[in-house]
């Protein structure tokens, strides 16, 4: 953790139709053993995760409003200052895939232009109920030039990788813009102290 004071804090948000498994992906990413952990409680801080990448620690602040999909609350304030967006659909549910376009539109309207995206097809554990082929998912992602991956929140397959890919996309994009002055306010650096405070959730 020598590098913590220099590490970045990225704000990621997860969006998608209800029951696409957004909360499961986050829970799985936060703690691989969440299911057997009886003491699991909803802590205010548990959506902070640190990811180690090439000797660098990157703090991820993940926003998820699973359960509120029927409310008209996913608005600009939610997208404001977001660094990355994960758009989740359920590979067994045609409707959830239909909404992917809608989410891309919303992002282009509401999120900052610098935001990076990833399209995630969830529930590969239900291969026999699959309705959306990998190819269709890939095409949708390609047409929006964003990365794509299929995961299973249930088995944990590819979940960590999806977040890593999103962070990679962000790193790549910020490298390209390195010579230009940053439009956004200086990215928040995490001090040792605040990192410890934020990290006390029982997830990582």
């Amino acid at each position: 953790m020598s590098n913590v004071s220099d590490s970045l804090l990225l704000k990621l948000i997860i969006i998608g139709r209800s029951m696409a498994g957004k909360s499961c992906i986050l829970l799985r990413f936060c703690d691989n053993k969440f299911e057997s952990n009886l003491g699991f409680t909803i802590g205010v801080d548990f959506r902070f995760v640190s990811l180690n990448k090439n000797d660098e620690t990157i703090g991820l602040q993940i926003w998820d409003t699973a359960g509120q999909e029927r409310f008209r609350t996913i608005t600009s304030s939610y997208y404001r200052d977001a660094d990355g967006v994960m758009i989740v659909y359920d590979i067994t549910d045609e409707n959830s895939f239909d909404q992917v376009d809608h989410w891309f539109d919303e992002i282009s309207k509401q999120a900052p232009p610098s935001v990076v995206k990833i399209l995630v097809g969830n529930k590969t554990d239900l291969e026999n109920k699959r309705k959306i082929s990998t190819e269709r998912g890939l095409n949708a992602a390609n047409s929006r030039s964003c990365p794509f991956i299929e995961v299973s929140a249930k088995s944990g397959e590819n979940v960590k990788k999806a977040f890593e890919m999103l962070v990679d996309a962000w790193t790549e994009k910020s490298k390209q813009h390195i010579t230009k002055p940053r439009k956004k306010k200086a990215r928040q650096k995490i001090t040792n102290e605040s990192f410890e405070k934020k990290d006390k959730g029982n997830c990582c």
Partner: protein
Amino acid sequence: MDTFLMTYQSFTTPTKLLHKLIERYNVPNHLDLEEREFEKLKKAVKLRVCTVLKVWIKRHFKDFSQRLLREVYDFINTSLPTDGLLQMAKMLRAEISKHLDGKEDMTQVGMTQTEMDPKVPKNIFSPKLSIFDIDEEELARQQTLIEFRIYSKIQPTELLNLAWSKPHLKHRAPNVMELISKFNILSRWVTTCIVTTKKIRDRVKMFQRFIKLGECFRAINNFNGLMAILSGLNDSSVYRLKFTREEIPRRDKTTLQDLDTLMSTESSYKVYRETLSKSAICVPYLGVFLTDLTFIEEGNRDYLANLINFSKRKLICDVIFSVQRFQRNSYSIRPVHQIITLFEKLDPLSTQKCYELSLEIEPRGKERADIL
């Protein structure tokens, strides 16, 4: 027992529970106990079953359908007298009739406070009464009354198994659905009012009215209403109105910022949660409860080694208790039917339409001088 009775419907039905209780009541002599020992055990178990039944009826009378109630009566009238539990039978029957007479519903608190006279405009009885004739403070009060009435009707069963988010279980959560629908209409109405105001000067005024309305909701702890206003003002079709936002006086901007901070998703609604915990009479923003329930439901198994995961039910129950905590204290606001009717009749435009109008009033790439 409270936790159990609150959440058992996530894994079984009231009918099955009653049958299991009756089964338990008829204790078999499994353990080959001596006659005297067995009699003692039997009596204790029977009394305990009756106690559970009594608490069940008392606290969750809505679980009992007509048919189930008949079964309960059968049980009380046949089994209990046979065992000489006449006193208990009488008590149970009294408990049921108390509920049938509707006496139990009279436990509302809060009406002791004196109601303030409503602030109504002179034309309150005019058929042409418009929502904008009315003071924001009164608008906030009446809308709060509408929302609290729905909120206070939410049943524990509506919050189980993520019923509100699953199409095939939606019918199980009527009040949750209604409150969400009211929320969305209010929010869309806010957006609609802004984008249908053609001149920027009037639009700024409209914007200010809604900030004021949000402030009034905050003042009486209606966080649900406040969140609806904020989501209406943060909708992309309003948010993109750069010139309108620039012309809002600084004082109002600061107020809006403060309200935004209060309801921010940051650290899982940290600021809001702290504020809520200190509120007595309020309408909480339901969404946060629903998110908590989602994470508890999705993050924990229903069964552990074939046993019901009771710890999970305990967590769910904690959320339900929080919902109920705020159902008990009702507002002492005098309803003004003219205003309530105006709110019931709101008919906002679709999000898509609002965005189109937004592009018309402040087209992309235009200068301030080009805007009406």
